């Protein structure tokens, strides 16, 4: 990771609160292009809120994998994935694709689905898929979106570790920068190069992954 | 929710209250004589004519007289059959309907003009129809509007003449489209605007509306005058003598026949009222049967 690469996300003294309860406070975080960052910490530590702040920093550069898959259950997998590029096509084309999908778009979406192991589900209704499949559709939508910064909130939580690793590798190959909230320590250490740990709304650890091991991270998870 | 239970009891109490007041009203020594009339033309004219009749009758009969407006021909007949009104200004056909439903009721007076009443067929200028002496068969395939369904001059008689002119056919088969305007004033407006090419209208309402300047002679004109038939009449229930004393029916007839005030007669389009009996309307029963409107 070249140190001089440009800063994509800069948060300075960021704070957030919900209904009077402070969730994040005095938080400084800079993510540079090309970094692969894992956000870790107990549930309730503020990861999802931080993900939201990051996404809001540069929405036009971000492809998002939200925590809940956020699929439109009544539409097909194709349409859900295609939604990743709605903003880059003419509305007329989008409306037409709802009724009669264009061949080129089908092919493009099919390629994406191949990469996440959902080759056979192109026309299945999203609501009829299993939880793990839905999560991969959500990932596929972000892949199809293709914007340089991938922000994911537990994007592989419903998958086994091997599958998860494969999906994260796909994301890494596809997007220049990754910012992922993860809870699987081994996966985080293997697939990212920087670990940021949150506790009670503050960053308590920010270090290169290669300097860390599971033992070093375990205190932040015990009693969770 | 206790409120609802209370609400239910409340409502029940109210019904008994309403029925109770109704019963009380009947116990009064002289209940008002209530009358109505078929709503055959513009309502403002109805209110004017019947308001004057109510005042006049009250003075002559010495009992309170009230007019109750209705929205349709059958509503007038219903009010008569269920006893809400004792007297009504009916058309020829509604009178027949009412008297068949209420045994003992009598036609007591008609307008002098009602003995020989007429229907006008009127046509829009754009229809190309010309006035004729004989029934204008050229109206076939045009659009046609009757008045109210139970109107004598706006439905029963014209339908009868149409069936005679086109044997074996009903109006739906004769015309391109058949409508029921609801009343004679509306029939004139619809034909005048061209919405319908031809219409059947009460000749007295035509005359009244013409006098009132509501008819544009360039847009609509009479193309045929029907043979005459008996029409409007005052019909009274048979039980009024019981309620208001023996001889009341005769007294009422006398009062109606004795109307001389043009202010009362004019809104009716009648010169005076003359005595009449049920028998005068027998021909309409036959016509009603032959058109299928009566059993």
């Amino acid at each position, binding site marked *: 990771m070249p140190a001089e690469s440009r800063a994509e996300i800069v948060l300075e003294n960021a704070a957030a609160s919900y209904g009077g309860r402070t969730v994040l406070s005095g938080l400084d975080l800079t993510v540079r292009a090309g970094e692969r960052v894992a956000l870790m910490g107990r549930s309730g530590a503020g990861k999802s809120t931080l993900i*939201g702040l990051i996404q*809001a920093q540069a929405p036009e550069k971000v492809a998002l994998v939200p925590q809940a898959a956020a699929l*439109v259950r009544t539409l097909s997998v194709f349409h859900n994935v295609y939604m990743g590029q709605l903003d880059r096509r003419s509305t007329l084309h989008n409306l037409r694709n709802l009724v009669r999908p264009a061949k080129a778009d089908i092919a493009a979406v099919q390629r994406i689905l191949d990469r996440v192991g959902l080759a056979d589900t192109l026309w299945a209704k999203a609501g009829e898929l299993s939880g793990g499949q839905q999560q991969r559709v959500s990932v596929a939508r972000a892949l199809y979106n293709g914007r340089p910064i991938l922000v994911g909130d537990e994007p592989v939580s419903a998958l086994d570790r091997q599958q998860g690793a494969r999906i994260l590798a796909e994301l890494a190959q596809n997007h220049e920068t990754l910012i992922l909230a993860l809870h699987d320590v081994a996966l985080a250490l293997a697939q990212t190069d920087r670990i940021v740990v949150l506790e009670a709304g503050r960053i308590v650890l920010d270090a290169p992954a290669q300097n860390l091991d599971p033992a070093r991270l375990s205190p932040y998870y015990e009693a969770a | 929710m206790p*409120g609802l239970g209370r609400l239910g009891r409340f*409502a029940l109490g109210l019904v008994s*209250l309403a029925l109770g007041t*109704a019963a009380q009203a009947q116990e009064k020594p002289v209940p008002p004589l209530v009358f109505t009339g078929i709503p055959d033309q513009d309502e403002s004219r109805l209110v004017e004519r019947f308001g004057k009749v109510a005042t006049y009758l009250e003075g002559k009969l010495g009992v309170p007289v*009230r007019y109750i407006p209705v929205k349709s021909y059958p509503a007038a007949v219903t009010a008569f059959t269920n006893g809400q009104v004792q007297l009504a200004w009916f058309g020829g056909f509604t009178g027949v309907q009412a008297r068949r439903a209420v045994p003992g009721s009598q036609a007591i007076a008609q307008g002098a003009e009602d003995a020989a009443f007429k229907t006008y067929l009127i046509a829009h200028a754009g229809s190309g129809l010309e006035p004729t002496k004989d029934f204008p068969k050229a109206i076939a395939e045009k659009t046609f509007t009757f008045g109210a369904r139970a109107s004598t001059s706006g439905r029963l008689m014209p339908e009868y003449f149409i069936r005679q002119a086109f044997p074996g056919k009903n109006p739906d088969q004769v015309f391109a489209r058949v409508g029921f305007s609801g009343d004679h004033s509306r029939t004139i407006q619809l034909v005048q*605007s061209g919405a319908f090419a031809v219409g059947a209208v009460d000749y007295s309402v035509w005359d009244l509306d013409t006098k009132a300047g509501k008819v544009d002679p360039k847009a609509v004109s009479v193309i045929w005058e029907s043979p005459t038939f008996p029409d409007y009449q005052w019909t009274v229930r048979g039980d009024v003598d019981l309620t208001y004393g023996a001889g009341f029916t005769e007294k009422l007839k006398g009062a109606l026949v004795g109307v001389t005030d043009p202010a009362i007669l004019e809104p009716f389009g009648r010169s005076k009222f003359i005595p009449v009996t049920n028998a005068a309307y027998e021909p309409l029963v036959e016509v009603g049967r032959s058109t299928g409107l009566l059993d």
Partner: protein
Amino acid sequence: MQLARPRPGYAAVSRWFLAAALAGLLVADLHVTTLHPWADLARLLDGLARPDFPSVEGWSVVYTVAFAVLGVGLGAGSGLLLAIPFARSRTIRLACAGLRAVHELFWALLLMQVFGLSATTGMLAIALPYAGICAKVYAEIIEEADLAAIRVLPVGTGTVSAFLYARLPEVAGRMRDYTLYRLECGLRSSLVLGFIGLPTMGFYLESAFRQGRYAEAGALLLVFYALIGTRRLWIRGWTVPLLLAAAPLALPPAIGNAAISASLARFLGHDIVPTPLRGAALAEPETWARLWSWLRPILTDQILPGTIQTLILAQIALAATALGALVLFPLTAKRFAGPLGRPLGRVLLVVVRSTPEYMLAYVCLQLLGPSMLPAILALALHNAGIVAYLMGRHADAIPYRADAPRGLNLYAYETVPRLYGQFLAYLLYRWELILRESAIFGILGVTTLGFYVDAAISELRLDVAVVLIAATALVTVAVDALSRGLRRSLRIDTLPTRLSGPAPVAG
């Protein structure tokens, strides 16, 4: 059992309905038979813009409210009593279905035969169908309620006590909401009863429209909108007893009294008995042959064509409602209308849905002449207003993802697909209501079932009228059953369908 037989999906059902509506359009009579509809419309709008308030008959406003309060009070009270045995008794369910399948105007036409043009007629015409509707809805509310409390009651607790202690407290809030909503409907029904002669605002509206006194009509309409628009201010839990106490004092004075017992006896014993059966020997096969030859032409010449026309009108109106709602609902949704547009959109939809469809149809028929077109317009406007309003509320409750698209893309890819099940639930529910109204529009001259009822009443053939009204009720019940079946098969039968339901929650 996920692999059960294939069910029709949302798309299939939508296509069937749209195709049926298109087929209906091919055979429907859509003529405009007046020549200057735009000129009349302009005069009407001018009247609305320059209302003549002094011409409004003040008492008609009072009577409108009094009929509504008493009719709904009586209907809701009986509805509550009927709701308790509703789930257990098939007889009561059938009776309630019959009560609500007959439109309040048909009830009024029948009641007038016995009670005359009186407060009793007005009150009962509202109370009878509302009792049927309230019984059903209250029973559903009771059924959906949490049963936890009832399970811990001591064994042997009486039905009524169990209901009062463990059920009613659970359901009272929703019942109150629904009853207050019914009162709003009651105001509309009360107004419409004026069109056939009861002294409510509809009486004067009808006269004003018929004679083209649009300034008076405009004033009456604006007063009515104000009445509905301010209902939340004066229809509240604590004002209901006051309204109920004041309403009987504010009823119109009786003008003449129908001889009720005599009329009732004649009505039941003679008028509605089929002509061939009156005074006939019922044991004679001859009598029944005559009954059949009496009934057959009614079936073939009136019920059959009337039913077909009613179904066609309802079908086209339903499709038009669907399209209208899809176009209109973004007006009231935050993401589409924005902070300025949304309140305006709401006002528009509230006005549209506050207008009784019968009155809308009456006005459209005056403007366009008697064909299906004005009836379709009236039904579609009113119902699209309601469905759009409800959809707007759901649209605001959708939890969109943070990077959701905007504008038409959001509409087409997120909002509509997410709400589509709910949308179909609303439409299928309104199908029956639209059908009921379609039948009644016959009174105004469209050749649906009500057209033949009107003719029968004009000819004083009440026996025929009652057969036709019963046929109308049967068609309504059948469509209701079909709608339920479809909703079940689409698995949208548990979604909310009522206007009074609680606002949807996010999640």
